């Protein structure tokens, strides 16, 4: 019922743009292409997230931490050199788009896959892909299933309102096997259904599976199958109709990747600040004309590195080998290190 109510409220606030004042204001601002100035005037960034270990969870002190959270903070650092000027709003998978469309948040950084129907039919615009992922299966070791094809007839736990349901159906049709989906929205209930044996399998994006596995009572009894059967390019989402805001989001995300490519880290930033390499000097705002557009502080890239680190540091801190998720970098390494991360040049 609560969800029904929330969805209803979201739909209603979409219906009457003037209804909720703050929401209406930023939604209209976006339509006129001035969300960046609206956010500046407001003094805080409103970022939509999805609660998940490693990506967005509050710590003991109630401070949000995680991979997605750090990218939200990077946007705030670029504007005000202050990682705390962010208001985080956690959404479920089903609420997130109405939350963005109604102007409740300025940007979603919550593990949303970039897809054609979302861009072409739902009025959403995507920033740079900041995580390359794919859908997979988490199964109990006792099933002895080495390939998904051995899972014919399995009960599959899946969360609603994602591309996951669609990809699962496609996969089953392509391989001529049958799955019985058990659709549960709440992640804890989903985990409960797997640990009790109601489902044989959980299907989610690879990163989601790593998170879910840490929530199981006996993580070692479960294994993530290596096969990935979808492309899930995770990117930040903004409303259509505001080029300036999209450009801002794009370049903030790319700056973290470019910093890693240059080898600039939190530690050695000071050394690089006096670098003689013209490309690095331009990137860090030591030479004018490159990073000072849109009324930003020319040093915004340096501020992001100082506060949060480069892409690699953000990844290692939240998802890397030292964390419970221990996700290998895989495709999410820079292009010149065997991965797919490729920032356009800062010049």
């Amino acid at each position: 019922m609560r969800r029904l109510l929330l969805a209803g409220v979201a739909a209603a606030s979409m219906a009457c743009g003037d209804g909720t004042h703050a929401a209406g204001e930023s939604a209209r601002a976006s339509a006129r292409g001035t969300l960046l100035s609206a956010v500046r005037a407001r003094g805080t960034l409103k970022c939509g997230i999805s609660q998940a270990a490693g990506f967005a969870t509050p710590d003991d002190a109630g401070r949000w931490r995680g991979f997605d959270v750090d990218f939200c903070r990077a946007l705030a650092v670029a504007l005000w050199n202050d990682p705390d000027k962010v208001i985080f709003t956690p959404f479920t998978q089903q609420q997130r788009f109405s939350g963005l469309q109604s102007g409740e948040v300025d940007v979603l950084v919550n593990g949303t896959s970039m897809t054609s129907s979302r861009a072409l039919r739902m009025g959403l615009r995507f920033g740079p892909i900041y995580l390359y992922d794919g859908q997979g299966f988490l199964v109990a070791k006792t099933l002895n299933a080495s390939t998904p094809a051995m899972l014919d007839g399995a009960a599959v736990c899946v969360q609603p309102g994602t591309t996951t349901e669609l990809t699962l159906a496609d996969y089953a049709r392509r391989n001529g096997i049958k799955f019985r989906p058990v659709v549960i929205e709440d992640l804890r209930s989903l985990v409960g259904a797997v640990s009790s044996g109601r489902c044989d399998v959980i299907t989610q994006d690879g990163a989601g599976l790593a998170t879910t596995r840490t929530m199981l009572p006996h993580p070692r009894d479960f294994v993530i199958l290596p096969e990935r059967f979808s492309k899930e390019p995770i990117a930040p989402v903004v409303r259509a109709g505001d080029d300036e805001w999209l450009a801002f989001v794009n370049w903030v995300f790319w700056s973290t990747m470019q910093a890693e490519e240059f080898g600039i880290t939190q530690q050695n930033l000071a050394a690089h600040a006096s670098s003689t390499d013209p490309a690095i000097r331009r990137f860090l705002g030591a030479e004018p004309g490159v990073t000072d557009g849109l009324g930003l502080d020319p040093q915004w890239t340096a501020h992001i590195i100082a506060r949060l680190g480069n892409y690699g540091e953000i990844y290692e801190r939240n998802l890397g080998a030292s964390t419970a998720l221990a996700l290998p970098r895989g495709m999410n390494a820079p292009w010149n290190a065997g991965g797919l991360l490729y920032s356009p040049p800062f010049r």
Partner: protein
Amino acid sequence: MIASPVRRRASFRSIAIHGLALAATALVLWWFWHSATNALADRGLSLGFGFLKQPANFEIGETWLRFDAGRSNGRAIGVGLVNTVVVSALGCLLSLVIGFALGLMRLSSNPPLRGIVRGYVELVRNVPLLLLLLFLVASLHGLPPPSHALHPARGIYLSNRGLSLPAAQLGVITLGLLVVAMVAVALRRRLGRVGDAAMALSIAALAASVAMARWDAPHLRGLDFTGGRTLSPEFAALLAALVLHHAANVSEVVRGAIQAVSAGQQDAARAVGLSRWQAMRFVILPQALRAMVPLLASNAVSLVKNSSLAVAIGFPDVVSILNTTGNQTGHAIETMLMMGAIYLALSLAIGAVLERYNRRLLTNADT
């Protein structure tokens, strides 16, 4: 003669008020529509129901209608609607029967029985339905896996995938006979002896047709049972939660209505030599029923609406399917409208049926 201009003025005034009210309503509706379409156009979205014909591309775990991912969104919503109707109809029927029995037990002269029923009613009515639902589904998930399913009789398996039963593969003929038998039962009184014969004949034919139908027994293949019909734990939990909760409500309605019949009626009935049961059946209940029906109607309506708690446990009811469809296609407003319209239609239909029944009760009582 003197009154007529006043009356004319009065009627003019009432027409004017009605007109104004209508115009105001129309204006508000227009404003809603206008601002919705404007807000949507701003975001590059449009309203429309074309998505209903597009392929759904997702699977549904439990269906009464044939369904696969290649079928349309409209079909998927239909499947969800049938799921909602099946669980609601069974829930209404069972809660009515059980609630009636509980209500009568509550009034029995046996103190322990009264106490037990009272305890049950107080417990169930004061626990949130959602909590009851989550408790039941968690308990059912504790059943053994399919490979170790309980197997109480041939063709029947109970596991954490649900209750698997043999199913008759009924054809059109059987369904036709079922309809004929139901009509015959309904018209039996009016047709007299012919009706009796028609009823007996059609029921015999129906029984023969069911007996000759091919029965499909479930068997374990790989990870799941195939064949037969499996009722999922989510369906069972939802049905049980609705029945437990609403039977308690019904029992209170029944108790209240019976106690509202004046005690003198009971004494009078006993005085003319009716037994306790006869007094209840022929004197008390016919009077109590009239007070019950409107309350039972509102109980049935709230049961239908409560069935939407299904989304919490993953039973694919119409709300769950509409949520998924809305999210996959981006038509959130249309699916919200449909959700509202569907529940409104179901509630009004229940109201209309019970209203008719109530009117018949009243006219029967008058003649």
